[in-house]
């Protein structure tokens, strides 16, 4: 495997912020160096959305009506697709064990890895979403809400997904298991995310949806790394 660039966290410097940046930077560099992975997730996102017009027919009214839902469901599946890489490579080559033994708390390391994962696979989805909404003919009034909902919702997808990825480490058929564990937990994000776009289009305003999406992300921000770190510890034990 690739030599991890900054594996060795300086034991002498207890600065948590520095440790956080080191891990996030390492993961970012690794995924950018391997390149393809993030691009493939994006390609899957676009391709899966493009499948829907073939499935339901090209009538603009139908596509415009289901567009926001299609984009959100597909975003969920795309996020899922990249999740199994989150801890697995580090688990298999032993660097996860090294990270767990490092002086920085494992929760922080996990949060850094989640951030790197979101930057590579969540943020691009949010940026790409309006383009897909355009293809499907979603009402332009929904675009700001779509981008805002994606920006607030995809961090939750990475955070909640990290719990599933950590729990399924070392399991049999971990890929399928991961989707079974994570997809039910994603339902609130899906409902609120797609609802935000619809509310914006119908003129009701997406504010309440976006506020609750933000609240979910704020709650998941401390809780998900806690649960994921606990799961990783028992996977390494």
């Amino acid at each position: 495997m690739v030599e991890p660039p900054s594996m060795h966290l300086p034991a002498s410097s207890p600065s948590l912020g520095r440790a956080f940046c080191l891990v996030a930077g390492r993961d970012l560099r690794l995924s950018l160096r391997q390149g393809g992975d993030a691009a493939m997730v994006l390609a899957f996102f676009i391709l899966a959305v493009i499948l829907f017009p073939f499935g339901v027919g090209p009538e603009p009214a139908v596509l415009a009506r289901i567009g926001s839902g299609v984009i959100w469901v597909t975003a969920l599946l795309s996020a899922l697709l990249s999740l199994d890489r989150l801890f697995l490579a580090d688990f298999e080559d032993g660097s996860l064990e090294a990270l767990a033994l490092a002086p920085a708390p494992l929760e922080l390391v996990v949060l850094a890895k989640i951030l790197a994962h979101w930057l590579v696979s969540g943020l691009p989805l949010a940026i790409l979403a309006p383009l897909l909404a355009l293809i499907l003919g979603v009402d332009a009034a929904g675009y700001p809400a779509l981008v805002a909902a994606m920006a607030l919702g995809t961090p939750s997808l990475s955070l909640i997904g990290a719990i599933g990825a950590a729990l399924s480490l070392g399991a049999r058929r971990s890929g399928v298991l991961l989707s079974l564990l994570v997809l039910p937990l994603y339902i609130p994000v899906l409902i609120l995310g797609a609802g935000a776009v619809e509310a914006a289009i119908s003129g009701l305003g997406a504010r309440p949806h976006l506020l609750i999406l933000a609240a979910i992300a704020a709650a998941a921000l401390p809780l998900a790394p806690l649960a994921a770190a606990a799961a990783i510890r028992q996977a390494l034990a």
Partner: protein
Amino acid sequence: MHRFANPTRFMRASALVLPWLAVATALLLGAGLLLALFVAPPDYQQGESVRIMYVHVPAAWLASAAYLSLAVASAIALIWRHPLADIAAQEAAPIGAVFTAICLLSGSLWGKPMWGAWWVWDARLTSMLVLFFLYLGYIALVNAFDDEERGARAGAILALVGVVDLPIIKFSVDWWNTLHQPASVFRLGGPTIAVSMLAPLLVMALGFTLFFATVLLLRMRAAILARKLRALRRAEAEAAGRFAAGPRDAAGSVL
């Protein structure tokens, strides 16, 4: 060996309690059945089809209560590392899953004459469907590892995550439902229930709850015996290896 001290006491206590619990369950379920089928009046709107409520609502209650007990047992297992709590959580899950399935099927059978369709995206039924998949995920995770301790720990963490997420799922599904459907749509097991229907419902719900307790105790006893069996076989295999008694004997004990 201190780990076996508690299960031993549990085995003794549960053996004493179980017959009484089984008798009480049978009596309550019998009484509930009589009340539900013969005593409870037909509904002025739904007619006799309201009798489905007496199995549907208790099943829904038990499906939720079983997940809650699964989460409580998981918390105890994680915090105090109590071996009985692990077993309780694992054995509560299949019971909860079965009652969730019963709730979904009876809800569908009740919905057909009420809504004219086998499935409507009613908020309660939809939440139950999600709960069913939470159960399936838990059971799949617990059984996905070769090391059973590992499965138990992972399952406990998942159960706690699920119990935190469940109210959020319930809230968002309710919200989604009110946004997408007119409020006048008939809901299964609505909040307004006549007293003459409440008594049979409560007896049935209590009967279902005792049934859960009975089956849970039985399953926990079976699980403890199964663990003991594995420990015995391991000890036997080790002894056979140490004294070179021959692999034939060790292999025979597995069968």
